[in-house]
């Protein structure tokens, strides 16, 4: 008998949802996590460690990506150890969910049928999903309960069907500026939408409620309120004798025989020694880019182009979130400074009125205060136009920034259309210190994404101006946020143009599943995390039935 029923590569949202489901069904599960195991007590609000250095991500001299961008008429690869712009996101137990802000939105029914709803767009590989919203809905609800989502349902035109009337946790405490957003939005005829958050407003089991630390996004949570995969799904099953978590385990390849995975070969990143794990079934969930990389690097005579890749589809149609950010500055003219500068409280407002328009798929606008991070805030002040400020002028500007004003930001999320020029590949010329080719990420975005992003940014700017904000501006970018990754191993019915079947099982390898965001053929116009959790529960349930 094999020592494990299931070997899961990665421990983030998708991986942990599978593990949680299988452990509760009595299965023997091993998780291979590349990074360390940080618990609540290990996390602190240290801006240097968590925002300014590669501490919870690999040192870029040791492992990196190449970013392929279009430059002067051709595609050029640049290693991230040169740009210092890491595409790793939280390599610790629980993955990048430890460091998310937890803006939680479900996909809408029409997101599953984008091609049928809006038709084709030239240069974009839009398809309908292999499942519909109704299939995923029970799992979205499961996430609300088990990961924990706080909020209240806002009725509006595109509200998705729900099987429960409201969220299981009441809304988090809100900053008075939220009422100003409400007022301005209503004046403009928009519906202010209360943003659901994967943060507990009330204690549950061994997780404490949010303590409003004011240092949330990018930081690990010290109370367990944030719905990280670690706090919500792994810590409750840690004592189960059927669960094994191996940390510092970087999986180099999956080894296959007769089109079945026999074992995972991993290297201990501390000792550089190789080990093998055998199991009945393997689940890859290392975040989209790294999952595709692992399959592409797992070559064999049956799969000369990488595991489960005789279709050539592995790594293709990589997705990010399109859109961008905008800002507006507020001062004592909107409310007393003491109220404006009040720390820790959440804004929790979105605009979703244009999630769908008559002519095109739109997206979501989330409002949030600029992160507390003082180094980041202060260092941005050193440039004024093209001039570098220092001395007294800089000091005055920084002091005013911190004590007289507050910056409200908005983030625009819209679909990153899948294209032939956004994919993961591997290149023997670029290897990490373990001798494994790193992932090359070609980043080609569709011009339509910018059009939608700008349309949404104008709406958000209008709200900012109606509120009385100063210095309102926005930047919609064709360059992606590194932390919002999906696609690369599309699911679908046809093995010729998808990697996974509707259960997220590899078409070509029966005992191989992919359970992170890789399966998504289109990304929707929201952060992916809730959908990754929900699909992880769905895949876990499928595997549970299979193994029973």
């Amino acid at each position, binding site marked *: 008998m094999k020592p494990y029923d299931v070997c899961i590569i990665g421990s983030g949202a998708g991986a942990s949802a599978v593990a949680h489901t299988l452990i509760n069904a009595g299965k023997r599960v091993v998780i291979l996590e590349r990074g360390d195991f940080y618990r609540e007590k290990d996390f602190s*609000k240290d801006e240097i460690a968590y925002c300014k250095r590669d501490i919870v991500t690999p040192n870029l001299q040791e492992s990196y990506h190449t970013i392929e961008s279009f430059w002067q008429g051709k595609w050029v690869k640049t290693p991230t150890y040169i740009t210092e712009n890491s595409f790793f996101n939280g390599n610790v137990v629980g993955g990048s969910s430890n460091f998310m802000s937890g803006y939680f939105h479900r996909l809408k029914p029409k997101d599953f049928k984008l091609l049928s709803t809006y038709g084709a767009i030239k240069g974009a590989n839009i398809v309908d999903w292999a499942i519909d919203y109704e299939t995923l809905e029970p799992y979205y609800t499961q996430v609300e309960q088990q990961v924990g989502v706080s909020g209240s349902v806002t009725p509006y035109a595109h509200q998705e069907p729900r099987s429960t009337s409201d969220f299981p946790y009441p809304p988090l405490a809100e900053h008075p500026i939220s009422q100003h957003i409400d007022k301005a939005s209503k004046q403009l005829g928009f519906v202010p939408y209360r943003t659901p958050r994967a943060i507990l407003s009330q204690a549950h089991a061994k997780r404490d409620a949010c303590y409003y630390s004011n240092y949330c996004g990018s930081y690990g949570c010290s109370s367990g309120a944030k719905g990280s995969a670690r706090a919500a799904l792994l810590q409750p099953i840690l004592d189960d004798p059927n669960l094994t978590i191996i940390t510092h385990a970087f999986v180099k390849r999956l080894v296959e025989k007769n089109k079945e995975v026999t074992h995972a070969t991993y290297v201990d990143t501390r000792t550089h020694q190789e080990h093998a794990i055998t199991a009945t079934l393997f689940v890859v969930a290392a975040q989209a880019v790294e999952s595709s990389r692992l399959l592409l690097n797992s070559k064999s005579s049956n799969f000369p182009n990488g595991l489960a890749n005789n279709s050539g589809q592995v790594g293709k149609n990589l997705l990010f979130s399109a859109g961008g950010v905008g800002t507006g500055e507020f001062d004592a003219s909107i409310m007393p400074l003491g109220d404006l500068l009040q720390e820790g409280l959440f804004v929790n407002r979105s605009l979703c009125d244009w999630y769908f328009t008559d002519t095109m798929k739109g997206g979501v606008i989330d409002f949030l205060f600029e992160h*507390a991070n003082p180094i980041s805030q202060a260092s941005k002040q050193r440039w004024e136009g093209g001039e570098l400020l220092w001395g007294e002028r800089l000091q005055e500007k920084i002091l005013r920034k911190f004590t007289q004003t507050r910056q409200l930001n908005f983030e625009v999320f819209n679909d990153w259309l899948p294209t032939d020029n956004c994919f993961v590949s591997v290149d023997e010329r670029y290897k990490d210190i373990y001798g494994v080719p790193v992932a090359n990420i070609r980043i080609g975005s569709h011009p339509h994404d910018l059009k939608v992003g700008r349309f949404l940014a104008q709406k958000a700017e209008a709200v900012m101006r109606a509120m009385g904000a100063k210095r309102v501006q926005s930047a919609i970018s064709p360059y992606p946020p590194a932390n919002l990754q999906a696609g690369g191993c599309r699911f679908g019915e046809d093995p010729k143009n998808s990697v996974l079947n509707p259960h997220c099982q590899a078409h070509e390898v029966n005992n191989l599943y992919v359970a992170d965001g890789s399966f998504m053929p289109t990304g929707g116009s929201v952060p992916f995390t809730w959908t990754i959790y929900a699909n992880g529960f769905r895949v876990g349930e499928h595997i549970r039935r299979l193994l029973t």
Partner: protein
Amino acid sequence: MKTTLTRRIFITSGILAGTSLLLLPKSTKKAMTIEPFKIIEAVQEVLFPKGLQAPAASEFGAINYLAVVSSDRSFVKNDLKLLKEGAKKLIEQEPHFLRMTPQEQDQALRHFTQSKLGQNWTSLLLYYTLEALLSDPIYGGNRDQKGWQWLHHHTGKPQPQKPFGVRL
């Protein structure tokens, strides 16, 4: 890391005052040459002088901070190279920089930043000076929380008990 030793060459025990010395590996304490960090220290005082309320770079421990963080493997090694090379360039262009009055130093730095290299270097050094001002005091800057106090900033809790995200 292969590069660790070269990164530490310019760090000297003479610069490292106070408790943060305890954070450094023993080999770091051995002095090799002091000069680039002396120049950097002087420029930091121009970039962030004593203000009406603002603490000076020397008061909040800017050079001390740089010595501590640049000796850790998490520091971008190219940044340290750039910082040292720029300091040498400044002295080549302004040989008397260390003996100038603060006003003369400010003028000299303005002249130096006319070049792209000079501007990039000054911006990078200013960035690390602001890190020193507003990072957790565990790294040797923000001495007595002078940076946070100046800006009425309340840091998030818990504060780090160990630097560089080391687990407890």
